[in-house]
């Protein structure tokens, strides 16, 4: 009998051993050395096809490059050395660099560039948010290193849209399937400074420096990206030295920023305000169909407390959809002041009444709204819980619902929400791409605005503003658009976000790109 028990134990050990053999490898601290930076992300890199939107942008930014680069100083040459624009603004001629190779050995020339443009245009319905592609009429390779792009109409944000992280970046034509990329790519070969060496799904990805890079090679030879979905765990990992850098405005909360800024051996960095964090109200749903209800909610948000209490002052309170410093957005709007009395008055005006401490009621139903937030985002959840408590005082029954990324996006696109968190897209997308995106289903804007009487006119005005060559006309159109959205109270601006990073002191020169979704690893270095 004893023998039998012992053999049972033995079998268990054997099982354990076998399972160990098949188990995932060690993702240990051996990753960290003098030439390796250990970064972290809340999820896997997923699909890094440069022409699609199903991958992590920081990773796409490492592998692929554009014709032009967007910097704080403006548009700079990148894969295109210089360019000319025709008189009527409809033809762009790019002169490409002659010394660029893809990492699989293919030459980057006008033919390769055209192949990429063709692949993106082939999948045009996916890129409805990018006006530039809709206006693109023809793409020609005039000679080996000259690319001519003809537009149907002049378009002033053309260069900016060419430079964004996706979709207009270049992959080796050898990686395309039948000349297109919409069904997937056979390899992740770009011209960028880094190459994806390996990826263990949901665990870690490794990028190594492109030793044959055409430009100035980055200082960091190797980047290991670990996947840690939980905020607390990320912070702990940084503290214990398991990772070097946490980067991104939703990846690190205000408390941790303060803690690490004060801690020995660590630093914190903050960018200029980049985008607006706001709530989006669905004008087609229930009580929100009434503009007075929406205005009432505008008055019921104490933005300075949110800014102080939740963000510790890092993000400043926002009164307008787009900050007045964004081009074309200084249009003299009047902010909705924080006033619970005004809110109560507006509810009364809309016909909602309450008895004592109960919820507001009208026609036998109570004022119930659902706020949808991203379960992976710590600030969103905190703000949601805060508003739930605050609005309960007014008599609004706010339910909050947290879902994971995919489902969250899904609901937004379907318009299946009452209130949802939203962001403007930040530099360089604001205001043109952000407003342009309201014309199709990108996030929740399109569906949420369907209840506006002037929605069709709004869409038309956005298009006109984008293609107009007359500065005055453009200004007037933007003013109309912003005024309409403000008066109809479709958005409740909360704060102006700033990108942030906390990192181990050994990482040098941590800066911020104009696009908050990119991480400028190529500018960083490690102290030995």
């Amino acid at each position, binding site marked *: *009998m*004893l023998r*039998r*028990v012992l053999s*049972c*134990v033995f079998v*268990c*050990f054997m*099982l*354990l051993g076998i*399972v*160990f053999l*098949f*188990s*995932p*490898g*060690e*993702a*240990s601290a051996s990753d960290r050395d003098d030439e390796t930076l250990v970064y972290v992300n809340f999820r896997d890199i*997923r*699909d890094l096809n440069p022409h*699609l*939107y*199903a991958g992590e942008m920081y990773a796409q930014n490492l592998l692929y490059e554009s014709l032009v680069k967007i910097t704080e100083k403006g548009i700079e040459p990148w894969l295109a050395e210089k360019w000319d624009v025709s008189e009527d603004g409809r033809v762009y001629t790019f002169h490409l660099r002659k010394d660029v190779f893809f990492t699989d050995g293919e030459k980057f020339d006008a033919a390769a560039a055209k192949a990429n443009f063709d692949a993106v245009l082939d999948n045009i*319905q*996916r890129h409805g948010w990018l006006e530039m592609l809709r206006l693109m009429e023809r793409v020609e390779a005039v000679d080996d290193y000259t690319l001519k792009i003809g537009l149907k109409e002049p378009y002033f944000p053309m260069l900016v849209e060419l430079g964004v992280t996706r979709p207009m970046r270049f992959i080796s034509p050898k990686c395309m399937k039948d000349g297109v990329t919409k069904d*997937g790519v056979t390899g992740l070969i770009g011209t960028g400074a880094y190459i994806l060496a390996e990826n263990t*799904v*949901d*665990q870690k990805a490794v990028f190594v420096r492109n030793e044959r890079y055409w430009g100035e090679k980055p200082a960091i030879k190797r980047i290991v990206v*670990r996947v*840690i*979905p*939980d905020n607390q*765990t990320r912070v*702990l*990992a940084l503290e*214990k030295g*398991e990772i070097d850098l946490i980067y991104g405005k939703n990846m690190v909360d205000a408390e941790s920023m303060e803690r690490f800024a004060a801690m020995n051996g660590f630093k914190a960095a903050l960018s200029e305000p980049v985008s607006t964090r706001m709530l989006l109200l669905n004008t087609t749903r229930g009580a929100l169909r009434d503009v007075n209800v929406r205005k009432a909610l505008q008055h019921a948000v104490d933005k300075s407390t949110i800014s102080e209490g939740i963000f510790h002052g890092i993000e400043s309170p926002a009164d307008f959809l787009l900050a007045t410093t964004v081009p074309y957005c200084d249009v003299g709007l009047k902010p909705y002041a924080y006033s619970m009395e005004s809110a109560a008055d507006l509810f009364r005006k809309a016909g909602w009444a309450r008895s004592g401490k109960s919820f507001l009621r009208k026609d036998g139903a109570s004022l119930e709204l659902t706020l949808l937030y991203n*379960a992976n985002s710590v600030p969103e959840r905190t703000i949601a819980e805060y508003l739930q408590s605050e609005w309960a005082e007014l008599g609004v029954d706010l339910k909050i619902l*947290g*879902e*994971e*990324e*995919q*489902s969250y996006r*899904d609901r937004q*696109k*379907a318009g299946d929400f009452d209130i949802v968190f939203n962001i403007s897209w930040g530099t360089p997308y604001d205001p043109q791409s952000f407003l342009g995106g309201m014309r199709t*289903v990108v996030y929740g804007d399109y569906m949420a605005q369907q209840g506006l009487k002037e929605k069709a006119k709004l869409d038309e005005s956005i298009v006109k503003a984008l293609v107009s060559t007359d500065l005055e006309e453009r200004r007037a159109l933007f003013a109309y658009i912003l005024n309409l959205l403000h008066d109809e109270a479709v958005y409740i601006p909360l704060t102006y976000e700033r990108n942030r990073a906390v990192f181990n002191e050994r990482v040098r020169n941590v800066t911020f790109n104009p696009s908050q979704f990119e991480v400028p690893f190529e500018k960083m270095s490690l102290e030995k």
Partner: protein
Amino acid sequence: MLFPMLLGISFIAFVLVNLIPADPAEVALRINDIQPTEEAIALMREELGLDRPFFTRYLQWLSKSTRFDFGATFTNANRTVAGEIARSLPATLELSAAALVIVIGSSLLLGVSCALYRDTLFDRSVRLFVFLGTAMPNYWVGLLLMWFFALKLDLLPTSGGGGWKNLILPAVTLSLTYISTYIRLIRNNMIENMSEEYVLYANARGLKQRTVVFGHVLRNSLHSCVTALGMSVPQLIAGAFVVENVFAWPGIGRLCISAIFNRDYPVIQAYILVMGVLFIFCNLAVDILHCFMDPRLRRSS
């Protein structure tokens, strides 16, 4: 008995997920970023075979499942459900196996010791620990252990999959609930058996105490334990999902929880089926082992 049970579980899994309100065709379109227009939805429904009657769909799904073809996940069109499960199941098995080893080792050790030194301070403290152990939520214990060992003492990593260092805390946490049960069981059984007549007889014959205890008493005490242990193995595997969540262990439980928050129904469906089948086979294995170990049953079965 086996086959109808398997069928039953597959049926339950299928029915359960078909109750959900979301339209799989619409979801499939949206994750591929295609505008869900009327025609597109109709086309997708046809492609997914959703317009066919219930039983046809059930049989189709069943036949595909036997070939491990569960389709693609709702969250990422590139990943197949089978792939996700194949990736995460070994991690859960690894965790459960480790926990099992700890359970067997500790409960044998402590249970026997308690029985031998009953009513001493040692016995009483172990019993107190056991009692509290069953009352503590295991995720709380996990958090406390994480806080103490990973944060305060900085001995172990806080979370994630990986080597043996990452395995310790989750395995210990998972085993805690079962250790309590088994220590109690072994101790009680041994005490009961020690007062049996044959022990008295063996002692009278002059056999060494050690032989008596380990040779006879332990043997008989362990019998019901092995049965209970066998039944706990599938419980251990299924119940690991909380521990996996706390320690971010990349197992199948964590996959399911994430799928619930992502409304990723194919994954949930496959999880139910896989776990159900695993359960049935585990129980079968235990029955066989039981027969093997107990000659009385062998003769009668």
